[in-house]
């Protein structure tokens, strides 16, 4: 009996030892992994700092959604994240009520202002832990692009950040839905003319045109359903066309070797997004008023096939911000949809690293 008990204990210890250990004591290194938690306004936000922080350069990845997870970028899109981690310390933080974060989050705190405040606390934590002399790149994807832009609208907060990397950000909430319709019509015309699913694309084009003709100037949580349904159908058709490659890691590795907690993420994902999404539409007027004041070096990256946050939003950012021409750039990835870290991970990462090497002090 003792032998069997010993064997079980040794088996579990062996399994645990195969997994990577957390070493939070070595503050700087070329391959660090720090596991942190920040409790703020009821939310326990999970943070992973991973990569090379010898040059004290940190890149905060602000995930999409609202309700997605930054940790999943680190577990499922390593061909993207590992390339950046070679030269920078990536900071993956899961926002309140999202991903693997926990805590007693009051739904009333799920607002743009609170998310901006959370992000500010994450940045303050980095300065506290790693020193005032670090430099920070703010990198947002999709809703994360929106959130990072909202953060940068305040000059005092913007001063804490070195550069802004906007990947597929839907910056102006109402306009981006109309931009999506325009983009779907462009792609539909192109695909139908090449004889690729002509009936389906023409049908979608007509629906997108009808949506644009309704002249919606301000969407709500309820009225956004129609354009989002058209977007989903267009995405399905693009996937069916086989124009996009999808590269993701294995679920086994994500669970066993990394920080993927699917049922906790699912529990967060099941929360209603009504409050935050209505707040985003209300916030459009603030974006219109303050975005022209942003002067930070900015790299915007959009997928050619992205119909969820169309490249028109990248043009909007590029043409609106006050950043000098030499410090801002808009790049379109020809073989990407809404998630270039899945479609063209290495190209995306190299593009970002090359740009950061020049612009992040």
């Amino acid at each position, binding site marked *: 009996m003792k032998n069997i008990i010993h064997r079980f204990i040794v088996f579990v210890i062996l399994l645990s030892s195969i997994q990577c250990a957390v070493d939070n004591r070595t503050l700087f290194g070329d391959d660090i992994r720090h596991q942190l938690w920040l409790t703020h306004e009821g939310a326990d936000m999970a943070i992973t700092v991973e990569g090379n922080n010898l040059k004290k350069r940190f890149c905060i990845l602000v995930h999409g959604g609202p309700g997605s997870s930054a940790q999943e970028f680190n577990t499922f899109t390593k061909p993207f994240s590992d390339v950046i981690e070679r030269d920078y310390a990536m900071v993956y933080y899961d926002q309140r009520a999202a991903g693997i974060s926990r805590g007693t989050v009051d739904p009333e705190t799920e607002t743009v202002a609170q998310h901006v405040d959370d992000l500010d606390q994450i940045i*303050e934590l980095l300065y506290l832990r790693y020193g005032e002399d670090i430099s920070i790149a703010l990198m947002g994807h999709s809703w994360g692009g929106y959130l990072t832009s909202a953060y940068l609208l305040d000059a005092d907060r913007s001063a804490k950040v070195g550069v802004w990397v906007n990947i597929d950000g839907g910056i102006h909430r109402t306009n981006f839905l109309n931009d999506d319709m325009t983009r779907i019509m462009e792609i539909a015309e192109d695909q139908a003319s090449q004889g690729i699913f002509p009936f389906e694309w023409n049908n979608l084009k007509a629906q997108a045109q009808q949506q644009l003709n309704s002249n919606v100037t301000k969407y709500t949580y309820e009225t956004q359903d129609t354009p989002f349904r058209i977007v989903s159908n267009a995405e399905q058709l693009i996937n069916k066309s086989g124009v996009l490659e999808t590269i993701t890691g294995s679920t086994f590795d994500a669970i066993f070797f990394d920080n993927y907690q699917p049922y906790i993420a699912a529990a967060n994902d099941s929360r209603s997004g009504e409050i935050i999404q209505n707040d985003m539409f209300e916030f459009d007027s603030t974006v219109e008023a303050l975005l022209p004041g942003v002067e930070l070096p900015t790299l915007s990256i959009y997928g050619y096939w992205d119909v969820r946050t169309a490249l028109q939003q990248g043009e909007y950012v590029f043409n609106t911000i006050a950043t000098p021409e030499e410090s801002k750039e808009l790049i379109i990835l020809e073989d990407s949809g809404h998630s270039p870290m899945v479609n063209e991970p290495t190209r995306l990462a190299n593009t970002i690293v090359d740009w950061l090497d020049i612009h992040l002090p």
Partner: protein
Amino acid sequence: MPLLSSLRFAVFFTLILIASGWTGLNAQETKQRLRSVGIGYYGELGLHPGLQGDITLLIADNSTRRYKWRKLLFRPSAIYFRRQFYSNNFIIMPQLVSQIGAREIGETLLYFEVSGKVGYHRYQYIGDQYISTPTGIQSVKRGGGNGVVYGLGFLLGIKSRSDRYYSLSMDYLNEKTEDTIRPKLIAIKLGVRFGCKQGEKETAK
């Protein structure tokens, strides 16, 4: 922790203590009812490694000629598992088990179990923890929370001639935590139980 939540956990703990006390009231009786002591691998999602230890007590034996092995068991268990980079987890979970022998092959018996279970779950975050305060961010060492887990378990096992019970089982639990989220907890378990013959003999008397 909100007061209501504290009370809820206090009441729950009291119930567990009463249940434990009930089984421990008469040590002699407990010894007679003891059927097995078990240990096993507890894998949350199969891959987050952990250990489970338990004892099995007989509540009722309804074996008949047709159903040779039909028992109602009480099985308190203690569980530890680790979510990589995330949390250390401790569960104390009494279970009510219906055990049915399905097929006898020589001196071995194929059996299965269905169990209902409810328990206390403590999760402690892995990593350095901080909290924002009006005077700035401070380091803390309090991270984690408490929860109640409840659900069902299914087990397929073989009882060997040497009175060992080898089993493969699955737990499907819901979790009600202090958090605002209600995650599921699914575990695959592999274990062995050592029969306590002395207890069976004494009960048979």
